[in-house]
């Protein structure tokens, strides 16, 4: 090696590189590059392993890949190293990799040495037969949620355990609070109940396959368009083609409709949790109105079948477009009215302000993304900084609020609702002519492709690694919730346990998106 610059492999969003141009570097070079880039402002967008030789042989080595996002430059730096049964943990120096290292440890039965919090992530068996990072007996069934919880000892300190089944129509997860009276000293969140094995099922899947498409659509069903778009971009990057301009515009419309539905629903949820019933009732209904607009586009309220590798499944012909625009005008008015009422009510603001505060430093350290990060004053938005193609929003349009509390997270959503409303209308009005789908040639063999999409919760990352035959050898999915659950746990510190529902709703993270 002549110098580190030789090892610097940088792509943009939707980039694809041959693995030959990304050879494994020694661990020290890998670690220095990761720590150095993070110190210079990069985020760890993805960090995952893939066995060599594939697949899953008991004595296989493990290639570790990292995708470091430089939001200021719009660049994604790719790193690769090769490790054996153990690798040194970087978590204590770079907290945002802590969950990634645990995930690598669980998936491949390798140990992240020196990890300060080395616990299972989802509670499944390792993907390498017989390998287990914790040396557990393979004959004893794994019980999800049974991990060594962090405990606070002391007079009058008590523990509250909630879940996995919650009191409502909610996904399962287990929450363990350490409390002193009403005050939460620490919250630990144990997930994995929704684990369906999506990443492994994507191995060997087809670009045109219905099943692959539906697996990514159901990674997190409320983010169908976001995940389907990231998947489509990865497949297109591997095939070396771009979706037609009209398809890209229609994807953008669907993505903003998804953001609108969920953001409006979340503001309704906040209203429910503070007991402000008018906005709660209005937004619950308006959220459905946006879902119905998506159904006008593709027949399904969640956008199933809309985004496909190579383009989109449904066009917005003039009649459809007119119908959507007409509906949007009425919904627009209702949305603004409901939200204005909410943020214009002093008793509501009193409940939101100063509740569940996260500092910008904590948000940066944990690598938070999306609404939660922007509500801590961090200006990051894939649409502005890593736009997939020609569809950029201005960096000055990133909705930022400085205070890091429930109120800030609500306000970021409010601003994004306003900009998404405008974006849907503009994009539909200026829809480029042309086809909506282009056939994909065979995927590049022995390559790595990466795509980022700003879903409504935040940055979605999909990475595909192909084998010598062009088949998917490894498919990595990073839902924004993978980063942000740690943020919720930190936001609870020092708060009253009775504020948990409100603070939780202000993050509104995905269980299945995390659990995969």
């Amino acid at each position, binding site marked *: 090696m002549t110098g580190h610059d030789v090892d610097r492999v940088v792509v943009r969003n939707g980039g694809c590189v041959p693995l030959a141009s990304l050879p494994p570097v020694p661990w020290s070079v890998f670690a220095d590059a990761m720590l150095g880039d993070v110190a210079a402002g990069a985020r760890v967008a993805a960090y995952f392993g893939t066995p060599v030789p594939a697949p899953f042989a008991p004595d296989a080595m493990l290639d570790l890949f990292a995708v470091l996002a430089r939001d200021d430059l719009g660049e994604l730096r790719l790193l690769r190293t090769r490790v054996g049964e153990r690798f040194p943990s970087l978590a204590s120096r770079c907290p945002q990799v802590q969950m990634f290292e645990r995930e690598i440890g669980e998936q491949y039965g390798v140990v992240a040495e020196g990890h300060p919090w080395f616990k299972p992530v989802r509670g499944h068996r390792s993907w390498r037969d017989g390998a287990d990072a914790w040396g557990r007996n393979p004959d004893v069934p794994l019980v999800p949620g049974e991990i060594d919880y962090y405990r606070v000892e002391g007079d009058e300190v008590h523990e509250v355990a909630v879940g996995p089944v919650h009191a409502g129509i909610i996904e399962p997860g287990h929450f363990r609070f350490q409390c002193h009276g009403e005050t939460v000293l620490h919250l630990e969140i144990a997930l994995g109940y929704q684990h369906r094995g999506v990443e492994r099922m994507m191995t060997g899947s087809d670009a045109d396959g219905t099943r692959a498409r539906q697996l990514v659509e159901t990674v997190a069903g409320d983010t169908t368009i976001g995940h389907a778009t990231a998947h489509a971009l990865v497949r297109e990057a591997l095939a070396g083609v771009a979706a037609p301009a009209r398809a890209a515009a229609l994807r953008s419309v669907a993505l903003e409709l998804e953001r609108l539905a969920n953001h409006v629903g979340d503001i309704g949820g906040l209203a429910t949790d503070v007991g402000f019933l008018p906005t709660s009732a209005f937004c619950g209904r308006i959220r*459905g109105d946006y879902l119905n607009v998506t159904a006008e586009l593709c027949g399904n309220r969640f956008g199933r079948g809309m985004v496909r590798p190579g383009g989109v499944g449904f066009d917005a012909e003039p009649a459809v477009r007119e119908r959507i625009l007409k509906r949007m005008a009425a919904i627009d008015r209702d949305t603004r009215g409901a939200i204005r*009422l909410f943020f214009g009510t002093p008793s509501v603001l009193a409940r939101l302000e100063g509740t569940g505060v996260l500092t910008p430093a904590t948000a940066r350290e944990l690598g938070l993304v999306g609404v939660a990060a922007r509500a801590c004053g961090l200006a990051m938005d894939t649409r502005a900084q890593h736009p997939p193609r020609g569809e950029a929003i201005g960096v000055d349009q990133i909705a930022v609020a400085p205070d890091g509390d429930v109120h800030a997270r609500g306000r970021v959503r409010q601003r994004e609702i306003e900009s998404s409303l405008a974006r849907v209308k503009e994009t539909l009005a200026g829809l480029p002519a042309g086809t909506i789908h282009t056939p994909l040639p065979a995927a590049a063999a022995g390559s790595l492709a990466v795509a980022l999409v700003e879903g409504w919760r935040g940055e979605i990352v999909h990475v595909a690694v192909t084998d010598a035959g062009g088949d998917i050898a490894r498919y990595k999915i990073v839902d924004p919730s993978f980063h942000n659950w740690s943020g919720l746990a930190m936001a609870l510190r020092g708060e009253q346990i009775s504020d948990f529902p409100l603070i939780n709703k202000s993050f509104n993270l995905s269980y299945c998106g995390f659990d995969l």
Partner: protein
Amino acid sequence: MLKIIPERLRQGHRTGPYPKKDPVLPERFQGLPVLDPALCREGCRSCVQACPYDAITVDAGTPALDLGKCTFCGGCAAACEDGAVTFTRDWRLASRTREGLVVRPGERPRVEALDRRLKKMFGRSLKLRQVSAGGCNACEADLNVLSTLVFDLGRFGIQFVASPRHADGIVVTGPVTAHMQSALLDTWAAMPQPRLVIASGACAIGGGPFRGSPETNSGVGDLLPVDLYIPGCPPHPYTVLDGLLGMLDRLPAQRRRSAD
């Protein structure tokens, strides 16, 4: 307060006229499939090949579509060049039996009412506990929506409750992941008898896209006795409502006849 009243008036009354009037579903909505074997070409299996879940089969020239495996992607209809498979906008898809979900030419799934004893108990007050067991949050979201004022589930005496002790039935979503199996069965065990089981969505009925995953079951049917199957990915809220009301014998007589 003074700001709330005019906004309340402006937003208006939005509860839908269902079940007195039929809902209008979007033009592109994929509901009840219609199979016409007269249009089938001999030996053609393009619809069968298009389905990754083996939902559609052709036996001796007669096609059959299993709504319990179907995710309503429309792939079979797109693959059929002869129009022998089409999806209509009919949202009424639920069935009391697993076999009843298999649609054959000229057939449709139907919802039988509960027997007299159960109808007397639950017909006017049904409390349900929902358990998500690997659901992607789309089924969950569209169950939640039933409690909004558009559908206003409460007016039918149906309510989602927090405790299994208060519940008459359990609504399961998701393929039932290995990690949720014991929690689901614990919830079921905590419910007083008699108790109903409702499988909502493609995953809960047949595993959906996760059918065959080593980390999940292929639906709740292998674990609990299911009383009502509601197909869809996710089921449209009106599909759920139709199934629930049909089971409770609460649909207007005219509607029940038109489904025949």
